[in-house]
């Protein structure tokens, strides 16, 4: 193991020196600040609440991408972890600890339940490859769905959980009621700052941490080994890596991020719906990731934003929004096989190559 570690060290170093860390994080922060403002422009017809939802669900897509993009394993069952995070957080406030006015506790419980489930399911499914892997994840996700559906006494079955009252965020000195609006400030064509709630700020910070975490992860030795497994699993095994353990870890990390997304969604909506656990939700995560671009940090978020925007804004204007969504999905697969962000990045690289050639 030590030999392979030292062999990988130089690669990791060259990568981190190639592009500086500080500009990346500054641009990320800038993007997260500007997103809800640009999104509110009349041409996009978005609104602060949708920007918040996109970031929350985007965390799940980023999580799925750890498995799909970086480890190369297609899961059609990540709704299970999203839903468990959601129900875990909701039930914490409604049934497990109804007196606890804690903001962190429901998130911790939701993520913990999702992580444990991801470990249990991941340990079993990583033995399989390709289509069998995908099918088994579907099977386990359906099991979770039916358990939650049938366990009416605890989960309310088909009715889901309602009336989850979001506690305020206690940071010791200050308390934030996240549903409060930001101060009024006229930003001209970008509308008014008060149309955005404090929730967005909180979720943007969480998203920033998630991006930093995943970026560090894929640039670490661990990420390099995952890439090696993705490219050639058999050879990675022969070199001496314990492929199964690496894959389980990727599965658990992606499951935990989906759980985090679900827990935040439960607190944001004040409800948990059984639809979160359906195969549709799993399929959505895959579509978000593929449309945005697998193996890219921002692809899944862009894909989530585009599709959720279509669902939310276009569906209010035309009944044919599912057709538009389908056409976009097909167009991306045909014209941009690397997804939106993946294709942009590729183009930049090819320009650079063109310049160097001359």
């Amino acid at each position, binding site marked *: 193991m030590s030999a392979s570690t030292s062999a990988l060290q130089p690669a990791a170093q060259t990568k981190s020196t190639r592009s500086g860390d500080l500009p990346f994080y500054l641009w990320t922060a800038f993007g997260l600040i500007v997103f809800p403002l640009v999104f509110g422009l*009349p*041409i*996009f*017809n*978005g*609104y*602060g*609440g*949708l920007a918040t*939802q996109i970031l929350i669900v985007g965390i799940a897509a980023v999580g799925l991408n750890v498995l799909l993009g970086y480890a190369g394993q297609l899961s059609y069952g990540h709704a299970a972890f999203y839903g468990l995070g959601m129900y875990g957080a909701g039930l914490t406030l409604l049934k497990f600890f109804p007196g606890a006015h804690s903001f962190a506790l429901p998130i911790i419980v939701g993520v913990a339940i999702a992580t444990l489930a991801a470990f249990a399911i991941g340990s079993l499914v990583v033995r399989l490859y390709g289509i069998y892997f995908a099918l088994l994840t579907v099977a386990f996700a359906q099991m979770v769905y039916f358990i939650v*559906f049938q366990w009416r006494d605890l989960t*309310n*079955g*088909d*009715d*889901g959980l*309602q*009336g989850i009252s979001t506690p305020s965020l206690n940071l010791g000195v200050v308390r934030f009621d996240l*549903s409060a609006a930001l101060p009024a400030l006229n930003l001209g064509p970008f509308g008014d700052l008060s*149309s955005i709630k404090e929730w967005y700020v909180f979720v943007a910070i969480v998203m920033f941490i998630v991006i930093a975490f995943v970026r560090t992860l894929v640039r670490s030795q661990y990420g390099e080994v995952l890439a090696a497994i993705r490219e050639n699993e058999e050879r990675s095994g022969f070199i001496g890596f314990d492929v199964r353990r690496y894959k389980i870890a990727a599965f658990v990390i992606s499951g935990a991020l989906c759980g985090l997304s679900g827990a935040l969604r439960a607190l944001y*909506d*004040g*409800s948990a*719906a*059984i*639809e*979160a656990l359906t195969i549709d939700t799993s399929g959505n995560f895959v579509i978000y990731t593929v449309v945005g671009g697998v193996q890219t940090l921002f692809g899944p978020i862009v894909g989530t934003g585009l599709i959720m925007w279509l669902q*939310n804004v*276009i*569906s*209010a*204007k*035309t*009944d044919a929004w599912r057709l*538009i969504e389908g056409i*976009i999905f097909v*167009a991306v697969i045909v*014209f*941009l096989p690397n997804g939106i962000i993946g*294709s942009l990045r590729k*183009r930049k690289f*090819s320009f650079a190559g063109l310049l160097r050639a001359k």
Partner: protein
Amino acid sequence: MNKQLSRGRFLAASAAAGALAVNGFPQVMAATKEIVVGLDLPQSGPYSDQGQDQLRAYNLAIDEINKGGGIMGMPVRATVGDDQTKADVAVDNARRMIERDGAVMITGGSSTGTAVAVSGLCQQMKTIFMATLTHGDETTDGACHKHTFRRYNNAHMSARAMATTLTKKYGTGNWFYITADYTWGHSVTDNIISVIEPKGAKTVNNVLLKLGTTDFSQALGQAQSAKPDVLCITEFGKDMVNCLNQAAQFGLTKSTKILVPLADEYMAKGTGDNFDNVVCTAPFYYKYYAAKNAAAKKFVDAFTAKYGTPPSNGAECAYTNMYQYKGAVERAGSINPDAVIAKLEGYHFTATKGPEYWRDWDHQGISSVLVMEGVPVAERGGDTFAFAKVLEEHNGETVAIPQADSKCKIESA
């Protein structure tokens, strides 16, 4: 690579063009203030017939109101969302309507599942929710909220209204239930059982099936072998149509007395002769009230003239909800939710039915309940919607849940 580039550019350009075409020109704020109402109802899914008919009724009411000068001089504009009969979509829609479109009132819906979820959000966002087609007790019982009003009859009222008919016509033998497995189905079946079991009826089985079930053969097979005296189908919309039509294929409509606790015109149309002799309840029946009440006749005629079909009972509730909101805003002289709520609570009025009122402690509308019996298509006189004869009309007051038995506690804010 060049070809790839041009493709990419082409796609980007067409996506931008598409976005422009769909959005149209950026909306400029109208000079006169308007009242935005959010219509959150199913346009797809098992309960979509009911949602589409509600949308017709809302459009009719809003057209009429705008022609008459709007509400306090402000025109009414509707923003519409398809809730797909799913709670999470319904909540997303309501949030979009309130946050982006500035909706001051949310209304519509065909399921107690979506109604309870939207009610929770509207309470959180301090926006009035005039629930429409929701019949489960929960909406104005355990999950009642200050900002939610529900005029439609509920399961408790239906079961009490049918009590005499149930014992007289269906008897106290063996009962077999097929129940939609969500809050509404449970509420209705529990209420029927609580009425009929003390009289001596026996529950053989209660099969719970997921909302959106299309194949009922397993449950109906069980019903067939159990040979019950009564088969109670607590299903709604297309689910009920599928269930009853499949029950007929099993020969159950001939061998067993069938009860459908809640039905409407679209369900009766979809089941045709299979609905013959089936007893159901409804809060409104266009034929009955149009013959009895001038205001009902005016509404039914206007609706039929505009759309070519008479209104279903959910459409009537939608229409009256819109006018109830208008009236309350005008009495309050403001769209402030607290002021509007104060003007709705305890308000007595006569719309398309008899005298009715909004109960102040649970925000349930107290209006009459019809007990009806289906007639064969041949006796409908060419109108497939004219599906029943009215057996009894009950005063809502006598059948509604008394405060002592209710779990409802309205919030103070």
